[in-house]
């Protein structure tokens, strides 16, 4: 079975995808992930997820999914004019 491996590094960050590996079950996937992906203190926590359990967006849907965000610049603070004499805004 193919598993995707996620590692949380020591600096309070989120788990991050690092790669995949094959294992007969989740327990062994965890043991193997420790050997393959954390030989140099890369992490303090490991998630293993069966690759088949992941539903991914399709590259072909990029436009309908992400285009709408493009014309909503007002969602970013830089869109607004702040008069120079106004502080702490």
């Amino acid at each position, binding site marked *: 079975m193919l598993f995707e491996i996620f590692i949380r590094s020591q600096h309070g960050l989120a788990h991050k995808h*690092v*790669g995949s590996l094959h294992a*007969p*079950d989740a327990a*062994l996937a965890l043991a193997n992930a420790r*050997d393959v*992906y954390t*030989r*140099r203190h890369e992490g303090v926590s490991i998630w293993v997820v069966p690759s088949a359990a992941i539903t991914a967006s399709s*590259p072909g849907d990029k436009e309908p999914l992400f285009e709408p965000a493009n014309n909503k610049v007002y969602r970013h603070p830089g869109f607004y004019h702040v008069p120079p004499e106004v502080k702490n805004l």
Partner: protein
Amino acid sequence: MGTATATELSFQARIDEGIKIEPKDAMPEGYRQTLIRQISQHAHSEIVGQLPEGNWIGRAPTLQRKAILLAKVQDEAGHGLYLYSAAETLGVSRHDLIADLLSGKAKYSSIFNYPTLTWADIGAIGWLVDGAAIMNQIPLCRCSYGPYARAMVRICKEESFHQRQGFDILRVLCRGTPAQKAMAQDALNRWWWPSLMMFGPPDEQSSHSAQSMQWKIKLVSNDGLRQKFVDQTVPQADFLGLRVPDAALQWNEERGHYDFGAIAWEEFHQVIRGHGPCNRDRLATRQQAHHEGAWVREALNAHARKQQEGAHAV
């Protein structure tokens, strides 16, 4: 190349813009096949590359050297796995890739078909072979295929320890007895030329180079990398007090590079064709390990099946 289709042109435009190609993106079949070949050959090289060094784990001169060598060989196994993972994102199965290695159909770096006769060879492999590998691999961290580039970043981070531990082995030997220094010189004599061959045939004979460079899955030419390797390594040999086995080697003030002698390409092709000193031995060792590990794989699968059936029964 014939006339490019609109799809090929838009693909090339993405590459030229520096946009990474990811597993589910549309890609020309040639790109996919070239990458599968390149990444899987690279993975096989990491796996077979464990064998020449494995030969010395039980005979390392100190416990610390043994621990270091074990860690290095374990890294090589890890590198093989990162790369098989990257290859699998292109729609091939690891099972098939490994079957191709074991049957002798797939190629791996021909450097690993040379024997490790003395402890100094372990130093020479780290210093020269891993050094040449790093030089090949650093540009690949910027290659166009995302999973391959990311695997190379991890690998390059780990390789630099490999090169330094090799140099350190030779540094100590070169400051030892005359016999130890002679052993180091002998290792350099045998590994120098095969290391230069690791960069592949001269540019004018390299069949896939132009297309691969256009696709950004090869970023620097074979001869360019080879020159860089010679320029970096000769001063290191000087530091060790070792002589590079090349009568034609000379600093060229005008070019700002070392000139070096002609490479015996006939030997390179012989080794690739399977007639190197250890080709048969390497393959037989891999086949034996695969065969002898079969019961472990079967037992693990049986256990996983049983656990799952048990979970359903409850």
